[in-house]
C-alpha cells in the first residue's frame, strides 16, 4: 500500500519499503537518487489500483450503468494501467487511473453501440423489466464493495426525512422508483422545471447535510 508525503516541491511515496521522491518535473527517484525502474513504478500502480478499487469500480458503474460491464472494464483498466505504469506521475496518480478507467468505459460503450445484437438484447431486457432488477442489483453490488455501508444508509435515511416532502418524493421516485422526471411531473401535477428544481435542491441539501458531509468528503480523497 503506497503512502504519500508531500514536501516543498516534492512528493514522497513509500512503495515496498522504498521511499521514492518525485519532483515537479515528474522525475521519480529513490533515496539514493536513482530513477526508478519500471518494476517499481508498476508496483506503485498495482498498489494504487488495490487502494482505489472500490472508487474506480463505482465510477465505472456510474459511467456504464451495469455492474458486469463495470467489473470487466475495471479488469481491463488495471491491465492497461500496469502496461502504462512508466508514464504515471505520483502527484496525479488517482486522476490518471480515473482517466484510464474512463477510456476503457468509453471503449465498452462504443463496442456496445456497434453491437446491434446487444441493442436487441437490451430492448428485450427493457420489455421484460429486467433492467429495473439490474439497477437494484447494481446498488447491492455497491453495498458489497463497502462503497455505502449501513451507517451511511442510516445517515441518508435520517437526512431524507429532514427534506421538504416534495423534494423527498421527487428523489425517491427518480432514484428508487426509476421514474423519469416527466413521469414524476405528470404524477405530481407540477411543471417539469419545478420537479427538476426540487430534485436539485434536495440533492444539494443532502450533500450539505452535516451527517452526510463526512461520507461525501470521503469520496473526494486526493
Amino acid at each position, binding site marked *: 500500500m503506497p503512502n504519500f508525503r508531500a514536501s516543498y516541491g516534492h512528493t514522497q511515496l513509500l512503495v515496498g519499503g522504498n521511499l521514492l521522491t518525485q519532483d515537479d518535473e515528474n522525475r521519480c527517484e529513490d533515496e539514493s537518487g536513482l530513477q526508478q525502474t519500471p518494476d517499481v513504478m508498476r508496483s506503485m500502480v498495482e498498489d494504487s489500483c488495490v487502494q482505489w478499487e472500490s472508487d474506480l469500480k463505482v465510477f465505472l458503474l456510474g459511467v456504464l450503468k451495469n455492474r458486469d460491464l463495470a467489473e470487466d472494464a475495471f479488469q481491463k483498466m488495471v491491465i492497461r494501467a500496469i502496461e502504462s505504469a512508466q508514464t504515471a506521475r505520483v502527484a496525479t496518480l488517482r486522476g490518471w487511473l480515473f482517466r484510464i478507467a474512463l477510456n476503457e468505459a468509453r471503449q465498452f460503450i462504443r463496442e456496445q453501440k456497434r453491437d446491434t445484437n446487444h441493442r436487441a438484447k437490451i430492448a428485450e431486457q427493457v420489455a421484460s423489466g429486467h433492467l429495473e432488477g439490474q439497477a437494484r442489483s447494481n446498488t447491492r453490488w455497491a453495498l458489497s464493495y463497502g462503497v*455505502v455501508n449501513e451507517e451511511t444508509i442510516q445517515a441518508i435515511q435520517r437526512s431524507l426525512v429532514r427534506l421538504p416532502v416534495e423534494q423527498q418524493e421527487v*428523489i425517491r421516485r427518480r432514484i428508487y422508483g426509476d421514474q423519469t422526471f416527466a413521469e414524476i411531473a405528470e404524477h405530481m401535477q407540477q411543471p417539469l422545471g419545478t420537479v427538476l428544481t426540487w430534485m436539485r435542491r434536495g440533492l444539494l441539501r443532502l450533500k450539505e447535510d452535516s451527517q452526510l458531509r463526512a461520507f461525501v468528503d470521503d469520496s473526494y480523497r486526493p
Partner: protein
Amino acid sequence: MNNNEMNMRQDRTSASQPEIDDAQWSAMQYVLGELSDEQTELFESAMADDVTLCEAVLAATQLTCGIALACKTQPSTQPVIASVTMIAAPVAFRRPTFARFGVFAASAAMVLAVLAVGTLQTRQGGGDLLAIEDATADALALLLHDAESNDMNTELEELVASDDSVSSLVAPEWLLTAVDLDAAAASEDHPAIGPNDEAGVY
C-alpha cells in the same frame, strides 16, 4: 507559491463555486441517464480533461446507490414520505378533535341561549311553559346526539327521559300556589303589595 498566487487561486475557487454545483448536477444527471446522447458525449469528453468531473460522477453514483438502498431498507414497508406523514400526523389529528370540541361548545352555548330566552318568555308571558320545556328537551337531545362523552350522554339521556315522562306534565304545588296568588291580586280582593309598601318593614 507566493501570497499573490494563493490569493488568485482562492479568488478563482470562490468565483467558480456555482460552476462546481453545476458540475455536480451535471454529474448526477449523467449518472441518472438524463442527458441526451450529444450531452453525454460532451460530458464524457469533459471528464477526460477534468478529473474533478470524474470525482463528481463517483460521488453522484455513491449518493444514488446510498439513496436507493436507504429507500429500500426503510424500517417499515411504508416509503419515506409515509413516515414523514406519520411523524406529522399527531399535529394533523389534533385539529379535528379541537374542531369537534368547538362544535360541542357552540352547541352548548346555543342551548343555554335557548334556555335563557325561554325563561324570559316564561316570566314575561307566563304561558307556553310546557312548549318551551319540550323545545329545550329537543335541543338537549340534539346536543346529546353530537356529544362524544358517554358520561354526558348518560346524564342528558336521564334528563330527557325525565322531561318526556308524564310526571313532568303535572304542575307542582308551589307553582299552583303562586298562580293562585297572582290571580287573587288581579281580582282586587286583595290589593297588590308593591315594593314601596314594604319600605317600613325592615
